[in-house]
């Protein structure tokens, strides 16, 4: 683990990774445990009284089915929110945070190029996202039977978890790329927050506005959830969009990082 920047980054992040993975999985289990409680007709009637636009905006269109429930809760709101925060913390720290704490000088004075540092740190971040999502997947498979969520196949749970992992990698690349270009963690996290909140709002509201439906395709949330992986499985094309944009952002960050001065 100590042989490369990649291994060392994972090694140093191991305690946090365990905590985040357990935390995200626990949220999934708690939501799942509530599912049997809302199977009664009262709940369906209560939901039926809600305006369609509201249900659509918050992803509750079929919240009484297992896939609809999970898609609106664990995989729709809190899961992505936690993953974005975790990815932002890792990505913001990877270059900009280290730089602001004065730790980057020693690393960049080693026989390692800046681009390589960025790539290995990004790779470590991707591993953290993959592990968190895999732990969530394992927890969901375990509680699927007891929580009466059998309608969602393990394959589709896996697909949704892969979507979540790639979604997290995307936001990690945003924070890491902006942080590498600017050297400022606050700017990295600010941009991340704008993309996350803006993306969520656009994805939720654009379909409600006549003629603005296309705008959803500007939101990372669209590529994460519009294809409904809990129902239809993996959507490789959508994931590819996230990956390509993430790679472009990281590459732009690397170019700027190589050219600029490192702050003391």
């Amino acid at each position, binding site marked *: 683990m*100590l*042989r*490369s*920047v990649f291994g*060392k980054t994972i*090694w*140093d992040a191991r305690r946090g990774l365990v905590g985040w993975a357990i935390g995200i999985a626990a949220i999934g289990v708690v939501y799942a445990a509530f599912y049997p409680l809302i199977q009664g007709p009262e709940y369906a009637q209560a939901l039926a009284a809600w305006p369609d636009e509201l249900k659509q905006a918050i992803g509750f269109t079929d919240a009484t089915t297992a896939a609809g429930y999970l898609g609106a809760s664990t995989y729709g709101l809190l899961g992505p929110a936690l993953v974005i925060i975790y990815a932002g913390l890792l990505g913001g720290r990877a270059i900009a945070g280290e730089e602001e*704490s*004065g*730790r980057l*000088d*020693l690393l*960049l*004075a*080693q*026989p*390692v*190029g800046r681009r390589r540092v960025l790539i290995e740190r990004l790779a470590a971040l991707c591993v953290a996202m993959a592990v968190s999502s895999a732990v969530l997947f394992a927890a969901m498979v375990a509680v699927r039977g007891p929580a009466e969520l059998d309608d969602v196949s393990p394959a589709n749970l896996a697909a949704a978890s892969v979507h979540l992992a790639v979604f997290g990698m995307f936001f990690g690349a945003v924070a890491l790329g902006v942080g590498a270009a600017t050297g400022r963690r606050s700017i990295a996290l600010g941009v991340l927050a704008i993309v996350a909140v803006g993306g969520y709002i656009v994805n939720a509201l654009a379909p409600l506005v006549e003629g603005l439906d296309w705008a959803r395709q500007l939101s990372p949330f669209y590529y994460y959830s519009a294809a409904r992986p809990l129902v239809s499985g993996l959507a490789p094309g959508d994931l590819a969009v996230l990956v390509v944009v993430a790679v472009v952002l990281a590459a732009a960050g690397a170019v700027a990082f190589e050219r600029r*001065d*490192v702050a*003391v």
Partner: protein
Amino acid sequence: MGDVIVAERLSKSYGARRGLDGLDVAVHGGEVFGYLGPNGAGKTTTIRLLLDLIRPTSGRATVLGIEPRAGGPALRRRIGYLPGDFAVDGGQSGAELLVHLGHLRGGVPRSRIDALAERLDLDLATRISKLSKGNRQKLGVIQAFMHEPELLVLDEPTIGLDPLVQQQFLELVSEARSAGQTVFMSSHILGEVQRGADRVGIIRDGRLVAVEGVEALRRRAVQRVEIWFDEPVAAESFAALPGLLDLAVDGRVLRCRLAGRADDLVKAAARHGVERIVADEPDLEELFFAYYRGEAADDAA
């Protein structure tokens, strides 16, 4: 061996503030070069330019014959660097850090790391966050020396080290020189570079004021001296002594600033009964004044 570090008209400005203003300096292979200047003079800026952490606004520098940016990782493998502010993640042990850095540099035998740690009396199993400032600085020293680089670039290396460890550090520097390594170390304390260096470059406001051998520097250095006599003495008996500045005699206390050798003053004082002598470590600002005076005298001559 040729010059290991060469700076030619090297300049770096941060906005309106100038970090370096046309620095010319050459460090010869195999020497220990002290880089002396007050805080903010541009010492750290110079060092970070040499390691390609920042890029010059104008001028150029070469390290081991290559410009730092062009040299890239291959060049940095041949350098040992101790940052002025040695900051690392406190959650790891010293051993984790050193083994990792060793791997990045192509492998450093564990025995070498352990030998250095034992020599400086540092426990590598302790988490870095639990180490004292001095012990953290020892880690910084070990990592700079451990891969036996051709060039050591040390920014204020003895900061936080107690006198005993400073002595051990100077032994490491001296061994490095014996092994043919070149050492470039900065300091704002004159006595420190005097003990360790062969030549000293003096920098102020981003420019090199002078480069001197350590002996010549010692002759120029100005100390404050205070002598308490048994009986009141007359100022006249000291006034003619060479190198004595701002002489003031107040009853049985003589105060002055002394440039160069103390011999004449001591012999003159010995004609009286001497109760005690107090002499400060030469002050850097005083040294600069000495140089400015020297320049003025040279111009007049």
